[in-house]
């Protein structure tokens, strides 16, 4: 109780510090000191500290099940395992916003430490812009989503956490995702500040690249965890559903990826200044759009904890204010800070980056339209629609072919000007690609020209990237990310064409076939755990070589809240996942059994990790350069 109070006051202190920092920084800008005073740095540290205290108090309240706290009461229960008591802290609207605030103040502190050698004015302006965002979120949390509201009379038992959120991957998914999502805020503040302080140049690019990579790596990791969770927990054996909630995380990822390529161009050639700044703003705006859509309750998903229109309106207004602010700053400082001396030649890396950006922007618009259009139609015409995978497949797949081909050629282009020559080696790569693609398409038995083209493109990218490993000066970051990306696309494509499934309603003792495999439903067992009861189905799979594989899918019936979840049972191998889920319908004798073959699943995860590894290489390399 007292700890919960402490958390509340700590938040208020955090907000007050914000105002102090804001004025303190504004005054200092006019002074002629070479460095920013320790006072400002100290205040920023204190601000983070206050939010941190707040966050710890909330975790503590969850740990001791303090049901005088409304958030704890609504989302926790005494019988919940310790790990889920902790992760339950951010498994709800209020707590997740506190986490958002923690990351928001944390990245500013990180920025202040990392930017010690940069111009004073730029650092102060970044602080000021960042404080505008911070204040906005402080007010939002305190006014509409205070995690420390008290309830009276004090309850003896809580309502519990949604069982499908009680899962290890989902426990760490929010913090990782948020580091990526909220990390974009510092890019936004720094972009505005660099424009105002006439600092959009090579050095800025080199320094801000760290934060772009930081956000990009964590966002990739967050999306990966979310997908893995969806794969085994939602029980459909899919990992990406083009659900609006997934789309809102994909959009900032796409624009971050575009930005990543742009910032390198700016770093090396001082080109694309305006475009880079615009991308910085777009990226953060997309993160905010995501927050707005997810938190307002407009989208219906597991992320939508509460339906409260006032929250949506607040975020939307705040977002519009921020966009307007950046727009005004952009217009005012446009001519001052964007002097561009160099020219762009058609056959150069610069052009390749531009083409990359156009494609990514196209993909981004498709996802944006597919996500926003249904909401728009609902609000304006009161018509309910949903946009499914066919829309995205039709609009994205054909364009992936030229995209990956440019992606294969781009890295071997040179800055400024490239002279083309087609050597025997490049011809060999092309021949290999064609042979491999034809074999693959023949193997999966699809007689579709688009599929063939897609495989040609993806395999070409893979071989080209592998080929780059032979070069003398290797860019490991780029090579790894590109290898990962091509592997990801190939695995997804193979997975979607080679997946097989069968769904049957059967009783214990019955069996069925999928191709040459016999699936036998041996028996069921009931086990009682602390906070749920589980019905375990014992299945025996006899594969074509008569080897037995045992799978034990579960149905868990949680007591607080009273709800059932299906736990898939998955047997992973290098080339194929065997995936089984069971379900029951009340008062029916049948078990609804779904058995699937999911080829190359593990490669979807591995390739995403390789993409992230590329990002890590980029950070590591940058540090090395600084040391020299």
């Amino acid at each position: 109780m007292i700890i919960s109070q402490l958390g509340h006051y700590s938040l208020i202190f955090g907000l007050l510090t914000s105002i102090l920092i804001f004025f303190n920084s504004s005054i200092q800008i006019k002074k002629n000191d070479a460095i920013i005073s320790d006072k400002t740095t100290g205040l920023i540290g204190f601000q983070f500290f206050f939010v941190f205290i707040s966050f710890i108090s909330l975790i503590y309240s969850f740990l001791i099940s303090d049901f005088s706290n409304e958030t704890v009461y609504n989302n926790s229960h005494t019988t919940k395992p310790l790990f889920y008591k902790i992760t339950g802290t951010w498994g709800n609207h209020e707590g997740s916003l506190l986490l958002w605030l923690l990351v928001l103040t944390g990245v500013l502190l990180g920025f202040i430490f990392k930017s010690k050698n940069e111009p004073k004015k730029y650092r102060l302006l970044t602080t000021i812009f960042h404080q505008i965002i911070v204040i906005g979120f402080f007010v939002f949390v305190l006014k509409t989503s205070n995690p420390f509201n008290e309830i009276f009379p004090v309850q003896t038992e809580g309502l519990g956490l949604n069982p499908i959120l009680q899962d290890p991957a989902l426990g760490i998914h929010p913090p990782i995702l948020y580091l990526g999502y909220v990390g974009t805020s510092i890019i936004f503040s720094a972009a505005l500040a660099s424009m105002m302080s006439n600092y959009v140049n090579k050095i800025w690019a080199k320094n801000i690249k760290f934060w772009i990579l930081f956000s990009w790596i964590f966002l990739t990791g967050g999306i990966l965890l979310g997908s893995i969770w969806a794969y085994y927990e939602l029980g459909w054996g899919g990992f990406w559903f083009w659900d609006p909630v997934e789309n809102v995380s994909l959009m900032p990822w796409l624009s971050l990826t575009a930005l990543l390529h742009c910032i390198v161009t700016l770093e090396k050639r001082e080109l694309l200044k305006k475009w880079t700044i615009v991308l910085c703003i777009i990226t953060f705006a997309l993160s905010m759009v995501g927050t707005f859509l997810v938190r307002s309750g407009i989208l219906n998903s597991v992320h939508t904890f509460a339906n409260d229109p006032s929250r949506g309106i607040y975020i939307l207004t705040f977002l519009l204010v921020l966009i307007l602010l950046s727009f005004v700053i952009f217009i005012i400082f446009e001519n001052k800070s964007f002097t561009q001396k160099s020219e762009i030649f058609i056959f150069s890396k610069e052009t390749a980056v531009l083409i990359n950006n156009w494609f990514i922007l196209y993909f981004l618009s498709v996802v944006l339209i597919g996500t926003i259009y249904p909401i728009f139609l609902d609000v304006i015409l009161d018509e309910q629609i949903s946009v499914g995978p066919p829309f995205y497949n039709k609009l994205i797949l054909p364009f992936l072919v030229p995209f990956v081909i440019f992606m294969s050629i781009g890295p071997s282009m040179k800055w400024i000007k490239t002279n083309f020559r087609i050597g025997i080696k490049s011809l060999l790569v092309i021949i290999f690609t064609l042979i491999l693609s034809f074999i693959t398409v023949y193997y999966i038995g699809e007689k579709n020209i688009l599929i063939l083209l897609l495989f040609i493109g993806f395999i070409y990218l893979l071989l080209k990237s592998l080929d780059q490993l032979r070069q003398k000066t290797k860019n490991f970051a780029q090579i790894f990310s590109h290898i990962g990306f091509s592997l990801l696309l190939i695995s997804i494509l193979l997975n979607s064409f080679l997946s097989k499934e069968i769904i049957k309603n059967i009783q214990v003792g019955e069996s069925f076939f999928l191709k040459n495999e016999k699936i036998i439903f041996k028996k069921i067992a009931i086990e009682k755990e602390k906070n749920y009861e589980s019905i375990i189905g014992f299945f025996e799979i006899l594969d074509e070589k008569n080897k037995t594989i045992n799978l034990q899918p579960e149905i868990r019936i949680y007591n607080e809240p009273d709800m059932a979840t299906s736990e898939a049972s998955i047997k992973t191998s290098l080339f194929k996942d065997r995936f089984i889920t069971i379900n029951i319908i009340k008062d029916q004798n049948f078990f609804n059994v779904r058995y699937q073959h999911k080829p190359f699943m593990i490669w979807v995860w591995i390739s995403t990790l390789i993409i992230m590894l590329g990002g890590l290489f980029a950070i590591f390399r940058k540090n090395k350069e600084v040391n020299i």
Partner: protein
Amino acid sequence: MYSKKVKLRFVFIVVFLTLIVLTTFIVLKVLKDNVVYFKSPSEINLQSEISEKKIRVGGMVKKDSVIMNNNKINFIITDFKNELYVTFSGTVPNLFEEEKGVVAEGFLNDKKFLVADKILAKHDENYMPPEVKKSLGD
């Protein structure tokens, strides 16, 4: 005469704008062909002709209407004014239950009969998809 540079820029702008218009057109066209409309049994009943496109229907699973066999699950969706027979072979979500909200996606055979290929989950006990809530008149 305009200089070569101005001409080039002009061509560039024209090409760029055409591309944008073309893309927008294609995107909207594909969007129109691929959206799935949400209807309640009563709305379907009012339609003069049944569309060949995929639709979503939401309502309540009628009491005692679920019949299962090895391959199929049959049930009735009701909004307490009109009813719709649904036949479905696939996985049911955890919370599929009689007298609970449900959304079925599939093709209409006639005004009273839907062949569903997907039944959508709702995520928790307190929560009902907005569409269902609406079609039941809250």
